[in-house]
C-alpha cells in the first residue's frame, strides 16, 4: 500500500513537472500511456481471470499434495506446477513456508519457488505480444532449466 502511494506520488510529480515544462510533450506522453494501457488490457483481464479460476479450482491442498513425494517424477510435477501457476508473492512465500513446516523437502520447495518466479506460462501470450515468440520461448525455457538447477543446488547445500 505504501509502495502504491510512493509510486502514485512519483508519477503525479513527474507529470506535473512535465506539464509545466512542455504541454505538447506531456499530452503525447499521456496518449502513449493510454494506448499501451488499452493494448495490454485484454490480455491482462484474461490473465487476472485465469488466476481467479486457478485459485478456486486448484485449492492449496492439491498443490500441497504434490510435495509428499521426493522422487524425480515428483520434482518434475512440482516444477511444472511452479511454471504454470501464477501466484502473487505475498501468497507464494507463506504457502511455501507452510509446505516446509508440513515436512516437504527443501529441494521441493526451492524448485517450486524458482520455477514460479522464473517461468511464466500464463503470461507468455502477453510476453509474446511485447517481444515475439522466439524471445518468449527461449527466455522461459532457459528460466525453467536454470530454476531446476538452482532448486537442486539449494536442496543439496541447505540439506
Amino acid at each position: 500500500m505504501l509502495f502504491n502511494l510512493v509510486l502514485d506520488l512519483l508519477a503525479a510529480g513527474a507529470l506535473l513537472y512535465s506539464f509545466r515544462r512542455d504541454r505538447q510533450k506531456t499530452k503525447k506522453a499521456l496518449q502513449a500511456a493510454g494506448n499501451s494501457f488499452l493494448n495490454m488490457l485484454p490480455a491482462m483481464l484474461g490473465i487476472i481471470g485465469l488466476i481467479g479460476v486457478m485459485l478456486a479450482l486448484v485449492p492449496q491442498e492439491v498443490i500441497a499434495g504434490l510435495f509428499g513425494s521426493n522422487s524425480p517424477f515428483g520434482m518434475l510435477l512440482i516444477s511444472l506446477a511452479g511454471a504454470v501457476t501464477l501466484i502473487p508473492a505475498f501468497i507464494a512465500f507463506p504457502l511455501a513456508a507452510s509446505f516446509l513446516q508440513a515436512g516437504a523437502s527443501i529441494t521441493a520447495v526451492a524448485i517450486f519457488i524458482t520455477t514460479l518466479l522464473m517461468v511464466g506460462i500464463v503470461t507468455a501470450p502477453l510476453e509474446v505480444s511485447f517481444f515475439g515468440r522466439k524471445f518468449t520461448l527461449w527466455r522461459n525455457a532457459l528460466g525453467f532449466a536454470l530454476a531446476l538447477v538452482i532448486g537442486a543446488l539449494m536442496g543439496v547445500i541447505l540439506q
Partner: protein
Amino acid sequence: MKTVKKYALFMLVAAVDIFLRWHYPAKGVVAIKSSLDYLGEMLLFLPPVFVLVGLLDVWVPRQIVERNVGPESGARGVALSILVATAAAGPLYVGFPVAAALLKKGCRLANAVIFLGTWATIKIPMLMMEIKFMGLPFSLLRLALTLPAVIGTGYLLEMILGPKGAEAVEERR
C-alpha cells in the same frame, strides 16, 4: 475479428466463471472474488507505471539510454539494469512494457533480459517477504545462485536471437 482474438482468453475465463457460479456457486464466488480483488490491486498500480513509461518515452533522449544500458555499456550497463529492476515491484508482466520501452530507446537486448529476470526474481520488496517467511539462509542462497543465472540468461538469449533478433523485438513496438 482482431478484437475477438485479443479478448479470447478473457471471454473463455468469463464463461468458466459463469459456469462455475451456476453449478458450483462456492467455487464460482471464490474465482470471481479473487479476480476482482486482484484486478482492483492492478488498477491502482498500473496507471502510474504507464504514465512513467509514457514520460520516459517523450523526455529521455535515446542517447542517454544508449550510453547507460546500450550495446557498449558493458558491466556498468548490467549493474544498472539489475539495480533499477530490484527497486521494482509488482508482477513481472508490468515489467514487459518498461523493458519494451527501454529496448525501443536503444537498450542492449541482454540488459533488457537481465532487467526482466531481476524484476521477476530478486526485487527488494519481494526479497523482504522471502526473508520473513523462508529465512535468511534460504533467501541469500537463492539470491546468490539466481543472480549469475539471470545475467547468463541475458547473454545467452542475445546469442540465440542474434543481432537480427534484437531488431525484430524492437520493431514490434
